[in-house]
Every structure is written in structure tokens, then in C-alpha cells.
């Protein structure tokens, strides 16, 4: 993921972050945004160019600047994208492990 720049734009006390939808899904951005709902109100819409745009407006007591929020939001979106890759890759294993967990075979007697 190195080298991918995610454009951000300060507009007053809001920061707008533009995400390429082919790389970051709406679900990814929503999940990441949820984490900062104590600091800002984050709205997601489609920009004129068709990419997804998250606009974060800071609350008065947020304690960080809009610019900083933009940075942490971008980091969290990238983390969230990684989490989704993990979930995709491991769904078979998760089901297999759960089937062992809930199998009817006798519990280990110890």
C-alpha cells in the first residue's frame, strides 16, 4: 500500500478526504469513521469525480485539529482495509474452527 496518496482538503473546521472506491469500499470507510464519532461528525458522499468523500466536522471539545483528524482517519481506513483482507482470507478457517468447537464429539475429559 506504500506510495498511495489519499487526497485531503481542509475546509474551515472540516476536513474532506477522498477515497478511490476501487481500493477502499464504502463499508471500510464507514467502519473506520465510526471510531471517531466522539470527535467529529463524519458524512460520506460521492464526489463530483465519482470517488467516495468523507467529510469530518470536528466537535468543539474534540481536542485535536482537523488536519490531525484527517491523518488518523486515513490511517484507520487503511487499517480497516487490511482487516477486511484478513476476514476474506480466513473465513474458511473460521468456519472450520467453529465446526470443531461445536462438534458433537466428546469433550476432553481431564
Amino acid at each position, binding site marked *: 500500500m506504500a506510495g498511495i496518496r489519499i487526497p485531503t482538503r481542509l475546509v474551515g473546521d472540516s476536513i474532506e478526504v477522498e477515497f478511490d472506491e476501487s481500493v477502499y469500499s464504502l463499508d471500510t470507510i464507514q467502519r473506520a469513521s*465510526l471510531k471517531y464519532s466522539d470527535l467529529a461528525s463524519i458524512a460520506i458522499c460521492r464526489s463530483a469525480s465519482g470517488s467516495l468523500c468523507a467529510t469530518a466536522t470536528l466537535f468543539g471539545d474534540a481536542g485535536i485539529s482537523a488536519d490531525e483528524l484527517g491523518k488518523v482517519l486515513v490511517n484507520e481506513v487503511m*487499517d480497516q482495509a*487490511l*482487516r477486511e483482507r*484478513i476476514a476474506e482470507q*480466513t473465513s474458511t478457517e473460521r468456519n472450520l*474452527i467453529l465446526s*470443531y468447537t461445536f462438534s458433537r464429539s466428546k469433550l476432553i475429559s481431564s
Partner: protein
Amino acid sequence: MLSRKFKDLSYFRQTEERGYRLLPLRFTALDTERYVVSNMVGEYLVLDRKVIEDLVEHRLAAGTSLYDDLKSKHFIYDEDSQAALPLLGLKYRTKLTQASYFTGLHIFVVTLRCDYSCPYCQVSRQTDDKVAFDMSQDTADRAVDMVFLSPNPSIKIEFQGGEPLLNFPLIQYIVGRAEKLNETFKRDLRFVIATNLSFLTDEVIEFCAAHGVDLSTSLDGPASLHNKNRPRPGKNGHQLVVDNIKRIQRRLGKHRVSALMTTTLESLSQVREIIDEYVSLQLNEIFLRPLSPYGFAVRTGQIDRYDTDRWLDFFKDGLSYVLELNKHGYPIREIYSTIVMKKMLTPQEPGYVDLRSPAGIAIAAIVYNYDGDVYASDEARMLAEMGEHKFRLGNLHRDSYETMLSNDDLMDAIESSITVSSPTCTDCAFLPYCGSDPVYHFATQHDVVGNKALSGYCRKNIGIFRHLITLMEEDAGARRILQRWAS
């Protein structure tokens, strides 16, 4: 180097060169530089973000000690070995088994009458009206019957109030009846009285000796703090508690009495003094309890972030002092840390009511109120006193066990309290250590699940988890003490 018939290690490593697969794992920031990565059962490693990316993008090379650790701790597997799968299945089952035992803690509110008038208490009444505010024998009978409908092999009956010793005869009655029924049910049956000790007579002590009843009391700290938090006519609450703790230790034994604090904003600047108070009474356990939201004003839609962060400082400083005492030879455990360390370091699930997924409401603990109302938890009872009856399951005089436990609000709350399917929780590396608190979230956000970014419960727990893991990573002395607590 081995004689010719034998193959080298590299021969057996060959299959590992073909690549690896991920096992279910979660990651969350520990601090600005490091992340915690955890597997399905809470085994964890602390890694840099770059390493995690390499891990997920399959760039890690086999044959390194990092690779070996990831494989042995069940974060990855490969063609060389798939033993991780059945082992994770077994481990996950071990962690979940606890929940299948069902309700173990049964709280009996034998009276609302109390001699204290603590400002944060939602429930007690300063009155002599026994009829109006004492549990009746009929109610007690029905409650004891309901206790044994739970299949849990271990049953703990806890007497609360008001001040339960104000209705001591009923306590004696309930203990007798429960013991009689237990001749049939043969559970591991234990009793504890949560009392302010004002009415601790010799008769009470002898009864506790005869029936193996433990005592639990409130000790908020040194006299000035304790008496401010807990006003009593005569203003001598602290002295009474201290004298009676010593009396119980002498007559019944050191391990028969324990103390819990209520943490108020006043307490936050006095953690070392509070701990010293416990040490002066030779107590070996202390529970650095969180601030309670019940009765505090909570700004709608916002967490009281400031108070939670101040509390975390209180906790960290307190824990640091506790560890220091241990290093200097005084064995004392902080209870919340002990519970969390057991979840982190052992295959067991300690079963603490407030850190369970699904939540412990009704299915781990249940409250039988003096008037026969049955509540899903102690906090649910407090909430009811504030006017919100969502978690009242029914009444012993009117409703059957089945009706009460299949209450719709309860079912919905339990179902939505499963953390692996809750937003934000589902992605959190600390999920295996954490739990749900639907009553808290309903009280503070009017939603049983709540938005975790706004949750004091979440913020507090994540702060504790990060702190403990950091200590494990950076402080060898602290690590050994925490490991010992977990064992």
C-alpha cells in the same frame, strides 16, 4: 553434522517455503508505534504495523523465529502442519464452556432499610418500616426455588440491601432452606453477605462460622474519604468498618472477609492512600473499581471522556503502587487486572459478570428484589430505581422462571451483546478480553449496544488492556507478578 542416514532441519522446513495461510486474527493499536495482534482465544503478540502488513500480504519468510512464533501461537499455518485448526477449536470451546453453566450468582435483596445515606446509592431507604421494605418469607421461598432451577454446578448466594444484616433472621432462613434443597441438588453452594458491618453481632459471626458464610464490606479508603462518600449518623462509619474487619479476621479467618471500594470523584486523587488503608488491614485483594454512571449526570450522546481518563490515571497509579508493594514483599492482587490477565494468559475463562460475551445479564447473575421483582443484574435494579424498568424480568409472585428468562427485552439485549457481531468490537484485538454491558449502554446511550466511540465502558477497558500489555512488554518485574496473579 548428523550422521548420513539423517536429514537436516532444512529438509523438514521445505514445505514451509511454499507459503502460509492466515488464521483468524485481529489487530489494534497499542500505542503510536506498536500494535497488538490477537487470535481467536486471546493469545497475543505485539508487532509493528509494517510487520502486520507483511504478515497479511504474505511477505514473511519461513524459518525465522517470528515465523515460528506466529505459527506456534496460531496466527498462521502452512502445509507443514494443520494442527492449529483442531487445537483452536478445542481452545475456543474451553473459553465458551463457562457460558453454558448459566446463572451462578444469585443476589438476594433482603431489605431496603439501611443506616447509611450514601449520595450515590439509588436504592436504600432510611426507615424502620419492615413490612414495606423487607423481603417476605414467601418471596424468599420462591427465590430459593428459582436459584436451583439454574443448572450451574457452582452457586453463590449473595445477600445485599440496603443493609442486609437489618434482616438477619431472613438470611438465616434462606441459608437454611438453600442448604436443605442442596441435599438434593448437590451443588458447590456458597454464601456471602455484602454488608456495611454496622450490625455485626456475635450471633452473626457465629452463624457465619457455622455455615461457611463469607462477608464482603465497603471500604472506600482512609476515614476522611470513606466517611465523606458514606455518611452515617454518628459519622463513625470508617471506624466501625475497620474494627469489624479486624474482628472477623480474628474470629473467622483472614480469608473470610473482603472489601470493595466505591470510587467517586473524590477518590481519584487518593489511590495510594486507599491502598495503604487496605494494606493496614492486612487485606490481600483490592478492586480498583470504575466510576459508576448510575446516578451521575451523563451528557446525552457524549461520553464523559474526561472522567474516564482521570479514572484511568487513578487505575494506573494504583496498579503501579500495588506492583511496588508486591516487589517489596507484600502480596496483594488487584482484582480486575487479575481477571484480565487470566483471559490473556490462560486457556480459562474466569467468568466475571461484567466482562462476558454474551453479557452476563440473567445468564450469569440475577437479582431477587425484596418485593419479588427479578432483575437481570444489580445495575438493572439501580436503573429501575431511576425509573427505567427495561431489565426487570418479572415478579416471583406472578411469573414463572421460563417466562422471566425468555423476556423479550432480555433476549434482544443478550443477542445483541455478542461482541463478535457488534460493530467496532468485531474488529478489536482486545475482544477476547472484553465483554458487553447492555445495562450500562442503555443507561448512558439509550441503546443496549451503543456506539463504542462514545462508551466509557469501552474507553476504560481499552485503556486497561493497553496498559497491562505495555507492562508485560516493558517491565519484567511487573510481568512476573501479573503472570503469578493469572495462575
